């Protein structure tokens, strides 16, 4: 999958938030906010043309002290949530 064009991580009011660049509307009633680790994964993912859930797992293992099964599950969850939120595409 890949990060959708134009979507960018920024900090708004101390929250890591994904917003669309350009002249688009920013809707504070349904904002996509990422926690610290998801924001870390996003920064990694947006550097690559495409990435997989396995990449996410690898980045989690690099940065956090988690076992592989947990990282695998978390990576899968994040990948699914990003797709659902419409900020990445297959």
């Amino acid at each position: 999958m890949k990060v959708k064009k134009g979507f960018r991580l920024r900090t708004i009011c101390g929250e890591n938030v994904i917003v669309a660049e350009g002249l688009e509307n920013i809707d504070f009633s349904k904002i996509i906010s990422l926690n610290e680790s998801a924001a870390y994964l996003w920064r990694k993912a947006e550097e690559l043309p495409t990435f997989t859930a396995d990449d996410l797992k690898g980045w989690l293992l690099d940065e956090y002290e988690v076992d592989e099964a947990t990282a695998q599950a978390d990576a899968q969850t994040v990948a699914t949530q990003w797709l659902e939120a419409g900020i990445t595409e297959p």
Partner: protein
Amino acid sequence: MTKDTIEIANNVLLPEVVRLLEEGHTVTLPLRGYSMRPFLEDNRDKALLIKPETVKAGDAVLAEITPGRYVLHRIVSIKVQEVTLRGDGNIATEHCRLSDVRATVIGFYRKGSQQLDSTDGMKWRLYSWWWTRLLPLRRFLLFALYPHVPKRFLKK
């Protein structure tokens, strides 16, 4: 990522909103408070904001009336640089400079609707026409719509 509600204080959120408007975004902002009743309700409705260009009497705007204190109210009059504002659900007015007007409302999303009630649209204009002309009766209309014991009668 969860579907929670994050509450952010106005004096933190609104400067951020203003910054985004200045970058050229429009911003959808959930509304709090009762001062724009009867059209707008606390925690129910949202406003679509844009960076102000020319504002005129009758427009709903977001204004910083004192540093860090914002209201989303209707402009009653503009005299040179002096703006007078009054919330539709208020009797009292506020004042600010023209340069303190931070955003213009282009429309409202009401009652959970995805459909924008544009401030150019018939619904808002008709409502505005009537409601602003009914100002002499406003105190009574608001009381009839939202019966309550006025604060001045409550024991301290």
